[in-house]
């Protein structure tokens, strides 16, 4: 559903050029969960920003269902590390924010947003304000805000890394189920290798800057292993970890 072809990005800055991405090509299938890992500063956020249309690539092309992408499109939802909830809006109004911006706040869409809140255990908080919610709940509200616009492709940039470890484990389990249930196609950027193994169908490992694709790894667990937590307890988990660790080739 998404095809990335020979993508490159060179930043122009005062003190010279920074080559962030170099010749990145990959494809994502409908319903697939892709993890992207790479050393810090390699260009992971740059990649997502280009897919989301926030940044212009210096070269290469993007296609979504065979239509060429340029700029921000309706089909893509992008969730950032900070939940960026608006403190002066209620939870429901925060969730409706994306629809409001896109001028697609129809009664059906509003109902869909409420339905999402209901499904993910936040309905009773809909008239509360963000400051009354815990970090994990806020992050879920931010996710629902992104899902409410019914994206075909979801981009997550370190979406859980601002949370403490326990909340994060519980939330990834939750989010994984939400996304599978909605059959969402997802690209998740993280520097947390275990997190990407626990959630992804496929992991793209990026090299140091300028980022190239070092390797693509298919993640397969036995049928009975369903949730991220169960994956973490499976023996294959450690094997995948070691493989990716070797590829990343981290030096201090």
């Amino acid at each position, binding site marked *: 559903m998404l095809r990335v072809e020979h993508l490159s990005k060179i930043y122009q800055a005062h003190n010279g050029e920074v080559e962030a991405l170099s010749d990145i090509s990959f494809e994502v299938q409908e319903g697939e969960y892709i993890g992207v890992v790479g050393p810090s500063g390699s260009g992971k956020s740059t990649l997502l920003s280009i897919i*989301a249309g926030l940044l212009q690539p210096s070269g290469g092309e993007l296609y979504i269902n065979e239509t060429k992408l340029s700029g921000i499109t*309706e089909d893509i939802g992008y969730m*950032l590390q900070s939940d*960026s909830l*608006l403190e002066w809006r209620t939870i429901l109004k925060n969730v409706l*924010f994306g629809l409001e*911006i*896109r001028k697609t706040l129809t009664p059906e869409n509003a109902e869909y947003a409420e339905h999402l809140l209901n499904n993910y255990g936040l309905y009773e908080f809909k008239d509360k*304000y963000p400051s009354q919610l815990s970090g994990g709940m806020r992050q879920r509200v931010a996710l629902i805000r992104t899902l409410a616009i019914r994206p075909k492709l979801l981009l997550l940039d370190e979406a859980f890394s601002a949370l403490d470890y326990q909340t994060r484990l519980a939330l990834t389990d939750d989010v994984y189920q939400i996304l599978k249930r909605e059959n969402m196609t997802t690209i998740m950027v993280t520097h947390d290798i275990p997190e990407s193994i626990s959630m992804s169908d496929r992991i793209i490992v990026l090299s140091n800057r300028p980022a190239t694709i070092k390797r693509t790894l298919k993640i397969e667990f036995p049928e009975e292993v369903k949730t991220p937590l169960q994956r973490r307890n499976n023996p294959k988990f450690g094997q995948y970890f070691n493989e990716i660790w070797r590829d990343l080739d981290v030096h201090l």
Partner: protein
Amino acid sequence: MSTYNGISEARAAYLRKIKQRKTYVAVTQFTILIGLVVLWEVLARLKVIDAFIMSQPSRIVDTFVSMISNNLLMHIGVTALETIIGFLLGTIIGTLVAVILWWSDFISRVMEPFLVVLNSLPKIALGPVIIVWVGAGSQAIIVVALAISMVVTILEMLNGFINTDSEIIKMATTFGASRSQIFTKIVFPSNICTLFNSLKVNIGLSLVGVIAGEFLVSKAGLGYLIVYGGQVFQMDLVMCSVIILAVVAYLMYQGVAMLERYANRLMNL
């Protein structure tokens, strides 16, 4: 006290302590004020200080009483009105200019040195120019007040706008928000606090402008009374006007503070 039901002993003691402390502060403030007034009166009666030059509380009260039947309310009204118009116009125009400067990085860069100069220039110096341009009267006084509060508002508001959380703006951008949506839905609501801070500062600045303006041109207002009192060597009138001025300034500040609490409650801040 049914509201105290369900509150632990320690909690109740803690709340009591906070309340007690507040009372102590208020009582001390009141005592200092009364003490100073009494001291002033006593020193004047004992002729330690010259009441003709320093005035004296009892004479100020006498002046106040005689002025009430002598257009005092009109003078207060004139000053208050000029101040309110000046600071509202200064805040509104200043905020609008800040919006334009936020909108266009180019205009903002072009204007920067001019704003810096305007900001450090004492606007009172423009008084005579303003009088010549708009005529000697209330309009000149309002323009002086406006000029003083406007430039500060532009700088304050622009600074607030520019420092809006960039992550939130990025979030809105991912939904394809236009510049005007970003402003109305994020930048402006994020800066309600900045706006009220500007309003509070502007009351003071606007009063400075109005009093200075009244010194220059007026035939009415507290500034006029102060200058007049000085000229005819009636210190009681000067002191009385200054005290009334302080009360007016305090009331206006409280008015804005009340408005701010109301706005904050409305926005859940």
